[in-house]
C-alpha cells in the first residue's frame, strides 16, 4: 500500500507541475499587454515600459514561470493588476460562494438521484423504470443556464419566493442560503439525472450477482437485498462520477454564477479575462485545476483502500 501511495504521490506532483506550466503558457498567449491596459490608451510608451519592468513583464517566459511558481509554492499568487490586492485573498473570498454552492448542488444531486436510481433499478424493465429513465434523458439534455432562467421566471418573478440574483454575504446566513438555492437546483438537476442513470445501471449489474441470489435465498426481500447488499457495491462507480461532478460543479458554475450575479470563483475568472487581469486568471485557474487533480487523487486512494486489487 505504501509503495502505491508513494507512486501516486509522485504522479500527483508531476501532474500539478505540468498543469501549472500549461496554465501559465496558455494565459501568456492571451493577447493584450496588462501594463498598457492598466495605464489606458493615452499612456506614454516610456511609462508603459517602466511599468512592464516593475511588473516583471520584461523577463523571459521561463524565468517568469519560475518566479510565479516559487510564489505559488509559498502561497503567494501575486497581486491583481486591476484591484491591487493579493490574488490569494481574492480567491479565498470567492471560494466562500463557490464552495458552498458546489457542495449544496452535489448534496441536492445525490438526494434526488439516490431514490430515483433505486426506484428504477427495483422496477427494471417495467413501466416505472422506463418512465423515470426517460425523465433523466430530458434532465441530461437541459442546459443548466436555461433551466436557471426558467427557475428565476417561476420562483423569483412569478411567485416571488426567492431572489433572482445577487449574494448578500454570509453575515446574513438565511438570506445567503436562500440566494444560493436556485443556482444550486439549476446546477444539481442535470447532474442528478446523470447520477441516477449511473446508479441504476450499477445496481442492475450487482442485482444479477450470485451473492444477491444468496441473500434472497436466505429470506431477504428484494428491497432488503437492494438496500443492504447491492447499494453498497454499486457505490464505487457512483463515487467516481461524484468526484468528477464535484470538480465540474466547482468550475462549471461559471455560467450559472453569471446568470445569478454570484460573486464566485467562476465569475472572477470570467471578469479577470475581460479585464486582462492575467495574474488573477492564472491563480484562479490553477486553484481549480489543482482541486480537480487532488479530488481525483483522493478518489483513487479511497478505491485502493476499499479494493486491494487496485493497489498495483
Amino acid at each position: 500500500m505504501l509503495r502505491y501511495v508513494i507512486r501516486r504521490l509522485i504522479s500527483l506532483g508531476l501532474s500539478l507541475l505540468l498543469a501549472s506550466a500549461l496554465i501559465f503558457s496558455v494565459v501568456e498567449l492571451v493577447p493584450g499587454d496588462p501594463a498598457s491596459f492598466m495605464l489606458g490608451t493615452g499612456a506614454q510608451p516610456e511609462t508603459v515600459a517602466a511599468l512592464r519592468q516593475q511588473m516583471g513583464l520584461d523577463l523571459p517566459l521561463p524565468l517568469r514561470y519560475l518566479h510565479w511558481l516559487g510564489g505559488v509554492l509559498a502561497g503567494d499568487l501575486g497581486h491583481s493588476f486591476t484591484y491591487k490586492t493579493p490574488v490569494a485573498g481574492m480567491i479565498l473570498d470567492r471560494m466562500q460562494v463557490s464552495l458552498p454552492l458546489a457542495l449544496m448542488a452535489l448534496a441536492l444531486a445525490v438526494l434526488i438521484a439516490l431514490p430515483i436510481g433505486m426506484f428504477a433499478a427495483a422496477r427494471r424493465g417495467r413501466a416505472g423504470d422506463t418512465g423515470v429513465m426517460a425523465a433523466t434523458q430530458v434532465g441530461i439534455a437541459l442546459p443548466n443556464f436555461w433551466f436557471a432562467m426558467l427557475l428565476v421566471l417561476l420562483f423569483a418573478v412569478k411567485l416571488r419566493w426567492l431572489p433572482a440574483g445577487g449574494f448578500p454575504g454570509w453575515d446574513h446566513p438565511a438570506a445567503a442560503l436562500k440566494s444560493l438555492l436556485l443556482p444550486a437546483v439549476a446546477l444539481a438537476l442535470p447532474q442528478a439525472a446523470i447520477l441516477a442513470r449511473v446508479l441504476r445501471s450499477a445496481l442492475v449489474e450487482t442485482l444479477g450477482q450470485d451473492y444477491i441470489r444468496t441473500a434472497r435465498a436466505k429470506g431477504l426481500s428484494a428491497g432488503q437485498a437492494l438496500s443492504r447488499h447491492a447499494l453498497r457495491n454499486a457505490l464505487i462507480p457512483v463515487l467516481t462520477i461524484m468526484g468528477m461532478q464535484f470538480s465540474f460543479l466547482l468550475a462549471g458554475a461559471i455560467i450559472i454564477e453569471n446568470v445569478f450575479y454570484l460573486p464566485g470563483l467562476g465569475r472572477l475568472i470570467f471578469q479577470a479575462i475581460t479585464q486582462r487581469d492575467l495574474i488573477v486568471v492564472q491563480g484562479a485557474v490553477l486553484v481549480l485545476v489543482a482541486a480537480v487533480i487532488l479530488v481525483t487523487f483522493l478518489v483513487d486512494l479511497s478505491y485502493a483502500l476499499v479494493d486491494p486489487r487496485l493497489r498495483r
Partner: protein
Amino acid sequence: MRASLILGALLSGLALAAALVSFLWTPADVTQLAIAQKLLPPSGQHWLGTDHFGRDMLSMIMVGARTSIAVALVAVGIGMGFGVPLGLLAAARGGWIDEVVMRGNDLVFAFPSLVIAILITAALGPSALNAIIAIGIFNIPVFARVTRGGALPIWTLDYIRAAQVAGKGASRISIQHILPNIANLLIVQGTIQFSLGILAEAGLSYVGLGAQPPTPSWGRMLAEAQTMVALAPHVAVIPGLAIVVTVLGLNLLGDGLRDALDPRLRGSP
C-alpha cells in the same frame, strides 16, 4: 430499445432538417429588423413569435441550428481526427508511448473544460471558429481513450496474431483490422460528443464567447432573452427547447445505436 433509436433519429433529424432547409428558405429574413413587431407572442403569422428586434423566432431558430450543428460536428471531427490515431498508437505500441498518451489525456481531463474553453476563446478572440477549437480539444482525449480501450482487447485475438505472422505492420493492422472493429464504439461516442458539443456551444455563446452577431445562435438568443424573460417568456423558452430537443434526440440516437450495433446488449434495458 428500438423506440429510442427511432425517436432519437426523428428529433435529431428535425434539427438537421431545420438547419438544411434554412439555407434555401426561412419564413422571414433574419437580418430584417422590425421594431414595431417586437416581442410578439406566437401567432399565425409568426409561428414562434418575434424577438426584441421583431425578427421571426422560427427563422432565427432554423438559422441558429446551423451554427450549433456546424460547431459541434467539426469539434467531433477534431476529436476523432487526433484522438483516434493517438488511441490506436497507444494500443499498438504499449509501453512508454501508451503511458505518455494516457497521462497526457488525464492531464487534459483535469482541466475544467469550460474554463479552458473560455481561456482559449479569450486568447484567440470570441468566434464560432474558436469555440470549435476549444470544444474540439476536449474531444481528443475522449476519443483517444475510447479507441485505446476498444483496441486493446482486439490486439489479443488470434486473427491479429495471424496478421502479424503474415508480416503486417502495426499501423496496417490498426487500420485494416482494429479500426473496423471499433467503428461502432466510435459512432456511439461521436453521437454523445456531438450532443455535448451542442450544449457547450450554447454555453459559450450564452456568455458571449461563441458565434458573434449577426450570426444567430441558440445560446446568444438565450442571453439576449434573459432581461426580457418576464415580459415575453417565449423568447427565453423557445431557444432552450430547441437545445433540449436536439441534445435529447442525439442522446437517444446514441443509446439506440449502441444497442443496435452491439447485439449482446439487445434485450437488456
